[in-house]
Structures are given as C-alpha cells and as structure tokens.
C-alpha cells in the first residue's frame, strides 16, 4: 500500500526528521483558515496528494507567493486529474530555498534478499533517470537485515555522495530515521526525492513509503478507508478489494477467473492468443472456499463490461468440488446464469466437481485450449 506524501512525512517527523512545516487540507476545508492556523508564511508550495510518480512534471506541484494564491491553487488542484487521478488531499508547505537536491531510498533487493540503500548526489529526477544519466553517481549499500543500518554505513554513503562536516552528520541521521521507518512500517520502499541540502542540514522535500500489504495487520492505523482515496484503483477494483478478491481490471470483455497467479495470468495470455480480450484478472488463490468462488463468480456476473466468463481451475490446494459448489451457489443466488460461463476443471477432487456441475446442467472442460476456444466463440 502506497502512503501519501504527508503520511510518509508524519512518520519521518516521528523519528526525529525535520520536515518542511505544512498543513494537509481536504476538499471541504477552509483552506485560508487552515494555512493561518498552521502559521504558514508565503512563499508556499501547494502539492496534490496523488500516488503517481512524476507528479511535479504533470502539474501537481505549484509554488505560490501569497495565501490567496495558495487557496486558489488548492481549489484548482482538487479538480485537476494528475495522470488520471484527482486528489482527496492537498499538502501546503512552506517553500524551502535550497541549492542541492539529493536522492536517498531504501528498497528490498529481491535477488540479494537484503535491504539496499540507494543514494545519489543528483536528486530531483527519478531513479530510472538518474540510472540513465548519472549511473556512476548512484551509491549502493546492502544492509544485513539482522544488524540494520549502522551509523558508520550511513556516514560512508553520505561521504560517497560528497557530503562533509555537519551536512554529513545530518544526512546520516536522516538515513537512519528512514531505515527505521522502512523496518518498523514493513516497507517495500522508503524514499526521499528530492532530499534538499539546506545550509548544513538535509530536509526531505518529498517522501514516499510503500507498505507491504501482507504486513498491514501490524499497522491498523494505516487502514482507514484509503482504498478509494488512493485513486490507485478503478471503481471495480475498489469493490473487489472490499470483497477480498485479487482482481485487476483490463480493457476487454471476457471475464477471467483462475486459481493461482501464474495460471490466471496464463489464462489471460491464452484468451489473447486465441483472439479474445480479457476484461480482468481474478485469482481466487489457493484453497478457495465455495463462498469465495461464489463471490468471485457473482462479482463478474454483475460487472457490466464482462460479457462472458472463463473459469480456468487446476486444483492443488484448491478442491474442484468446492469450486463447483461455489459456482452452483452463485447461479442459485442470481436465479440462473446471467452470462455465458465456460468452466475448465482439473486436479484435486476433479470428478466430484464435474459431477456437481453436471447435476446443475453445466459441463466442465478438461482441456483449457478447447475451453478458451469455446468461450471466444460464444
């Protein structure tokens, strides 16, 4: 789950990092009053809180010279989609004059299976751009997850990006706070870009944290109704998340349900290969109950862009009889099949599953290729 900039900055502030003074406003807030309450003096920066990269270039960040201008700009930004997303919040901050913009991030390196600190003297552009234009400037330091980021490592990284004296100490303290946030919030990514060098201290002008979805149970404070607010998901993706379905919306008209991510992706690939267009990715995962299958089938039956459904099930931990029961329940609750449904069943308890479906007038396929051709021909 991606955190908003203001949330990431709140976390860093909690760990002792000095962040620019600012205030977060919602659509219905009295922006002028909120700015004055916060004691913010122009010049100010008005920042759309959307979870997309390249927000500044897309017009989501504006420098203003008066409170009135800030109010106007905030109003306008609330109505301005940035890469298709309209913000629910806007962050208004004191502008921080600075000369140097650094880059600092901590991510999980999948191959090394360790956290890695990435830092560069040349912040302000995204990491892919830095990697293209100044690859030699990127400093990489792998961290032993049992030891954590030590002070000397943080200083060494600072040194390698050209910092000295008090600035070096300030950077090292910042990096350790960032590492703490990375660990304590189970982050996949903790990043500041740009990280401004102001005199002899560093101040994060932007901050980004992505929390591992599997660790959200440890952070109940982060879970407040944010799926809609994030703007990251389509209407049907939001609905699916609420139902606990692993679902991605695509642009075709054939609803796809599979068990297991690899098989479900392959099912999409098969639909394309034989000339159809998948409307979605929906993975019922391993060991799906009849209840979950019912929810998944019912969900696609209701989704208008889905004209027909292809279910591709190969049972391992998933039992074909449970899947069949779920399909039957969905049909019963909907009072009959609303759209054509083609089912392919193989694997654990396959015969029992087939029998249950047959009793309800549905014949399941064994061969996925025959099944996919059938659904496309309908």
């Amino acid at each position, binding site marked *: 789950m991606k955190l908003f900039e203001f949330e990431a900055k709140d976390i860093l502030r909690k760990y002792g990092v000095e962040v620019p003074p600012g205030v977060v406003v919602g659509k219905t807030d009295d922006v002028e009053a909120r700015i004055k309450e916060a004691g913010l003096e122009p010049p100010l920066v008005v920042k759309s809180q959307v979870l997309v990269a390249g927000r500044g270039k897309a017009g989501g960040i504006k420098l203003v010279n008066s409170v009135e201008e800030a109010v106007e700009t905030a109003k306008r930004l609330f109505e301005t989609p940035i890469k298709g997303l309209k913000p629910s919040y806007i962050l208004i901050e004191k502008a921080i004059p600075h000369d140097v913009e650094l880059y600092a991030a901590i991510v999980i390196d999948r191959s090394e*299976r360790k956290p890695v600190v990435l830092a560069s003297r040349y912040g302000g552009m995204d990491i892919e751009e830095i990697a293209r234009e100044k690859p030699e400037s990127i400093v990489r330091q792998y961290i032993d997850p049992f030891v954590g980021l030590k002070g000397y490592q943080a200083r060494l990284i600072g040194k390698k990006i050209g910092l000295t004296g008090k600035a070096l100490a300030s950077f090292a303290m910042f990096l350790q706070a960032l590492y703490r946030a990375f660990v304590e919030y189970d982050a996949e990514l903790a990043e500041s870009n740009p990280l401004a060098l102001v005199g002899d201290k560093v101040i994060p002008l932007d901050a980004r944290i992505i929390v*591992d979805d599997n660790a959200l149970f440890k952070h109940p404070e982060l879970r407040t109704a944010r799926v809609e607010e994030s703007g990251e998901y389509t209407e049907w993706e939001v609905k699916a998340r609420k139902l606990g379905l692993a679902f991605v919306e695509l642009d075709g008209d054939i609803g796809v349900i599979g068990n297991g991510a690899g098989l479900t992706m392959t099912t999409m690939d098969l639909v394309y290969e034989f000339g159809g267009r998948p409307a979605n990715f929906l993975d019922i995962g391993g060991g799906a109950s009849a209840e979950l299958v019912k929810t998944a089938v019912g969900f696609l039956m209701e989704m208008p862009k889905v004209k027909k459904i292809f279910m591709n099930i190969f049972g391992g931990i998933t039992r074909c009889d449970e899947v069949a029961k779920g399909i039957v329940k969905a049909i019963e609750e909907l009072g009959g099949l609303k759209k054509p449904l083609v089912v392919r069943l193989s694997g654990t308890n396959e015969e029992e599953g087939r029998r249950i479906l047959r009793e309800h007038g549905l014949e399941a396929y064994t061969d996925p290729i025959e099944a996919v051709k059938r659904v496309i021909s309908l």
Partner: protein
Amino acid sequence: MAVLVGEDTRVIVQGITGREGSFHTKLMLEYGTKIVAGVTPGKGGQEVHGVPVYDTMEEAVAEHPEANTSIIFVPARFASDAVYEAIDAGMKVVVVITEHIPVHETMKFVNYAKSKGTVIIGPNCPGIITPGAAKVGIMPGHIFKPGPVGIVSRSGTLTYEIAYSLTRAGIGQSTAIGIGGDPIVGLTFTEAMEYFEKDPQTKVLVLIGEIGGDMEERAAKMIEEGRFTKPVVAFIAGRTAPPGKRMGHAGAIIMMGTGSYQDKVKALEKAGVRVARIPQEIPKLVEEVL
C-alpha cells in the same frame, strides 16, 4: 536419483491439525510420502491420520531423529516462527506453503536459513515432488510420473498444468519444484538449477517463470556462462499483464523498469532456451531436445 527430496525423505508437518495441514497430510501419506510426525503447539499427544502430533519441533525430532524435512501449513502471522523452529531443529529442507507472510520476515528467515545450511522452498509455494518417491507439497500427485524432466517454477497451478501435459504426452519428471510467488523466496531458479545440473536422472529442465523480478534473467546468464549445461525449455506467464499492477502474486509486478515479459524472453532466447508461447507447447519442445 532426484533433487532435494526422495526415498530418504522423512517429513514433519508443522500445522498438521489445521484444515489444510490435515487434508494434505492425508494426501501426502496416500502418495507414499513418509511422514513421521506433526507439530501444532498445544495439540501434543493427538494423532492426525495416524501421525503423532507434538507441541514442539524439538520433541518431534527427539522422538523421530530420522526426520530431515518439514512442511509448513502455519497461518501467515505465525509462519516465520515455525520456519525458525524448523531450521533450529536441524531440518535440511523446509517447505513453506503459507501465503501472505510479510516480506521483511521472509527476508530474515531466508538469510538465517542460508547461514545454517537449510534449504527453504517457498514461501507461497506448492512444494516439491519427486514422482514415485516423495511428495512434500500440495500438488495433486496423480498428474506426475517418474521420468527425465526437471521442473522449476514460480507458479503452483501452472506447474500442475505443465506437468500434467507432459505426463499425458508420456514424458515423466525427475523432480518438480514450485519455488513460490513472493518477491523473496528461499531457493531461487539458479540455486535449483545447480541441483538439477548434478542430478543424473534429469536430462531436460522446464523453467516456468512469470513477470516481475530478475530470476529468469539470472537463469539465462547461468546458462550462457556454461554453468548449466542441460537443455532448457521455458514458459513465462504474464505476456499481456499491464505494468505497475500486482498480478495476484506479490512478486508478479513490472516495476522500476524491470521484470517485463519481453526482457525475460529475450534473455532466455539469447541463452539458447526455447520459450513456449502457451504452456501446451511445452511437451513438444521437450521432446525435441530430449
């Protein structure tokens, strides 16, 4: 011969009294896997399908010192604890079936296992099977048969699909390993390939990848550098997946410019690997190199 599990495998099932643990214990026993004990804290003294249950791994190993492999069905919140318990009890191979383990926890126990010489398979995986000898996992046993093809895969159900199509084509398998769909897993493609390289039974390797990460590219590099010398046939899932979206598996995401289908296929083809467009082409491609 086979890879990592075989005739000598003696298994402890962690989380044996749960719904999935108990169900798959039954299926593994029916397949012929030698399960010597189960562990569920607080359930010591019970039996599940005739298998004695202990409260701790230490007790289980004390009673069954021949145990060398564990399989974990423990829910995500408690799964990493179970992994450490298995490593400290001296298991050589630990298969982690559990899905949704926080990645920071996996990162730690994978590093810990490495320092102790334990092989972790998973998490979020279907396990490992040496057809005819031992099944330590949740795959349907009847779709496999003994033979010359090694399988290593990031996807569970796709492994079944492909193994089944091989079996129907009369081609058996040496060992099939589902390494799991998480961003960080224990055994990687290249590590698994080191085992298959040394296994005389394995004549061809089928590699089943998906978008996200760079494990396929690393496998390609290993082949190019001559560190894996047997013929390899591959399939990569996610040709039509949009970038930036997580496709079910936590690890299946194209991000920061890496992990795309095209990059993986290009790297593999450059290394001389035949890449199938659909899984059903695999048996034909295997026959050509067998």
